[in-house]
């Protein structure tokens, strides 16, 4: 629209959303300020380095500070709030708690979103592959080891679950 706003229609966590927002509004701000989905965090303030704002766009992990809200028109967004099914934690969430893979938790939503996408593409990753897949996420508290362990454990759980459902 010529007034510097854009009308967007998108699906967020399975819910239809329609809104008029400034064209320059970042997706992360739209999620946080407009939809109150504050689980998506800002760490590096829009450099795309820290990964705390990672969400899924049409099933793929993306950094929501690197996109405009207007760019998700007609697409599907999944945030950390939509990762668990009803009250059942995602296997990654369960594994993160068991392995103490989070301390302050600020980076955690972004890491969960990145790793849940990664495990779809690589269901049996090695430690090294997990570490490499984490290059887009900064965690300042844990030193990463517990995160790697949790992702490996979750991969095991998900494999067993997938085996059962075959």
């Amino acid at each position: 629209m010529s007034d510097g706003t854009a009308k967007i229609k998108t699906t967020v966590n399975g819910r239809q959303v329609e809104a008029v927002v400034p064209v320059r509004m970042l997706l992360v701000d739209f999620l946080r300020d407009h939809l109150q989905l504050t689980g998506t965090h800002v760490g590096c303030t829009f450099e795309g380095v820290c990964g705390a704002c990672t969400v899924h766009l049409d099933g793929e992990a993306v950094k929501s500070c690197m996109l405009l809200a207007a760019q998700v028109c007609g697409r599907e967004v999944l945030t950390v709030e939509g990762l668990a099914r009803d009250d059942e934690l995602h296997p990654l969430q369960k594994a993160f708690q068991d392995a103490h893979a989070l301390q302050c938790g600020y980076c955690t939503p972004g890491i969960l979103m990145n790793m849940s996408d990664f495990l779809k593409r690589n269901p049996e990753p090695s430690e090294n592959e997990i570490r490499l897949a984490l290059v887009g996420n900064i965690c300042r508290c844990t030193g990463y080891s517990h995160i790697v362990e949790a992702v490996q454990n979750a991969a095991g759980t998900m494999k067993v679950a997938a085996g059962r459902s075959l």
Partner: protein
Amino acid sequence: MRNEKFAWIGKKAVRKEDVRLMSGRGQYFADMQLPGVLHCFIVRSMRAHAKIVSIDRAAAKQSAGVVAVFTGDDIKDHLDPLPHPIVVPNLPGKFPKHWPLAVGKVKFHGEPVAVIVATDRYLAEDAGELVEVVYEDLPYVGSPEVSSRPDATLIHEDLDNNEIFSMSFTGGFTEDSVKANVDEIEAIINSAPVVISRKFKTHRVGVTPLETRGVMAKWDRDDGLTCWATTQRPHIDRLALAEVLNIPTHMVRVIAPRDQGGGFGTKAPFYRESILIPWLAKTLGRPVRWLESREESLMVVGQERDQRHEMTIAADKEGKILGMRARVVADNGDGCMGVYWGFVMPVLGAATLPSGYYLPKCDIQLRSYVTNKPSLSPSRSFGSYPGRFVIERLVDILAKEVGKEPVEIRRINLVSSLPHVTATGCHLDSGDYLKAFNSLVATVDLAAFREKQTALRRQGRYIGLGFGTGVEISGIASDVFVQLENQPGYGSATIRIDARGRVQVLEGDAPQGTSHETTFSQVVAENFGIHIADVVVQTGDTANTPFGSGSLGARGGSYTVSAVHNACRTLRDKMARIFIFDRKLDLHVGDIQFEDGFVFPALDPKNRIPFAELADRIVMKPVNMPPGEEAGLEATSYFEAAKPMFYFGAHACMVEVFPKTGEFEITRYVTCEDAGTVINPLVVEGQIQGGVVQGLSNAMFEEFLYDEHGQQLTTTLEAYKLAIAPDVPHVEVTHSFTPCPHTPLGSRGIGEGIPGPVPGALTNALCDALAPFDIEINELPVRSDKIWRMLREKGADIGKPEKGSKQPELQNA
């Protein structure tokens, strides 16, 4: 209590914090809003040292959504400058006068110059770009070497020179006593069989958390000021705000958000913004909010460790250290930072320079000089990171000089009998340093490593093993903390049991990822025989919590948790008394047990009452009470330790260095720490792994850089590199256990000091690997290009670096 069988203490309980944090339901500062809140953008100086000639804000004021624009000149007549007594340490330093916005001149790149208040964050930033500041440059004073010259440009007109702090830590406070100390150590050095002198440099670096800072405030003429802030010390902030804004304390409430995205010391100071935002809210009569950007954060906070050490140690032929002389110089930055003023960290670093070594005779002097950089500010391993690096390198250099294993030199110099008072007056209280160190040496199997190292060297491969150790405060007792920072050291907690037997813990400190909810709940559950799910821990709101000096210095695991325990004990005894009275038993409180949700005599378990029912009886049915017994179940404890507490940790690092490129790989990293009674092993392991990686990230990657005009070059996380997962090794955590005799549970706070031993272990490993080339690494950071250059300078015959010359990975060397 520590000899009893524990139900919760020592258990790997999964954290109570986790589910909400993993589900996007954390409540961090940035998630909080108030209706009608105004947003701030702070215009910061683009110059390092300059007079402010003029500030043109006409265009900014006209910009969409702008409510107000303030500069230093606008506020200086309405707001008292710092220093104020509440944020001034009891140390012989200088405390430069400053307002939250620059007045007259700017003193570093990033100093706040003006603030835009607007209806929207985007609009505030738009307007900020329209503010035009005309500067007249002054000479940039960018190092203590320049700052200390007699003809140096004065940075603070209210100080007579640029030396902000100077003190001897071993020679007393008179000129004569200092001279006597200098002469005594000089004589020891002059007569010692072995003397080693070296210079060390540690870079400007720290532990910036992933969550930036933020402040939100609202003013109400009846209730006064309410301020939400990312802070480790809401109660200190409250007192400071009351004093600076001239509001009675009962009209100031500070709330730290329930969840904070890391602190590591950076959320402990009383910053310019801590004052500015509440002042704006009061002045404008509207709620105001400021959320720091990453760029601002890297410009201002988390910069520590910027020091030089000129060291001499004297030793006998066996390598037993006889004396040490240290001349420490700190690059203080502008020093305008409430509570810490840039030099409090170097002060603690100098005071703990002997670390865990028995150094009977020392001459330690520190000078700190103001420079045109942001003030040094606290970062985990508060003050001690540079000193631990220096002492651990010196021990290895000494080992080489006397021809012994570095392990042997540590064994003969580590404090072997505790308690011990260091030459600087630090009281090392308890533990067994040699036991912990020897346990670590056994884990890494030194003899097998040396064999492998010799064999690989014959193949042209270079592996190395290095050790680092350190003592670190586990909280600070009041008798030290009052002297250092005019603040009490006690840990405090209030415990309330409600009529349904659920327990509330109120803590005045503000955790930042430090697992207080879980560990404190475990202690409560242990005391009352209930489940941790029936405990809620609420923190950081000055309206309902007991006074605490803040979540810092590893206080939680020693002081605060002890207050939690003692308050629980008070209530448990009361419940036991009333139980005995009600049942007309001839028993003492110690005969009553609290287990699995029931209260009963230990010898008559069937004569039991549910915990919740007994709580209900005391809170809701206070009839037929024992004589003199009050109703209700609430207790507050202020725990003070009988003695100061320190914990000891030792680290071992193994590396392989590739001399053709100078690159290196950490092949194994092992720690051995003595935390006394461990409340939650998962949490302790997490603290250690994270702390080691922070130490490695500081030593290998991070560095705040300034150009020749004082422009900060590292204001993005692209330029200021933090370690990511593929950069760092897994850290193997082992424990040595000696309970702390000064806490009721035998626990010792750890966490703060973990990064300290890291640079010593790493650089000693690299030097050990490169021993055939006689390389000494006495400066941080350590990077492959530096190692490559050193090898070149030594004329090492290692060929030219070739593409792909990195050799195969060596796992678990």
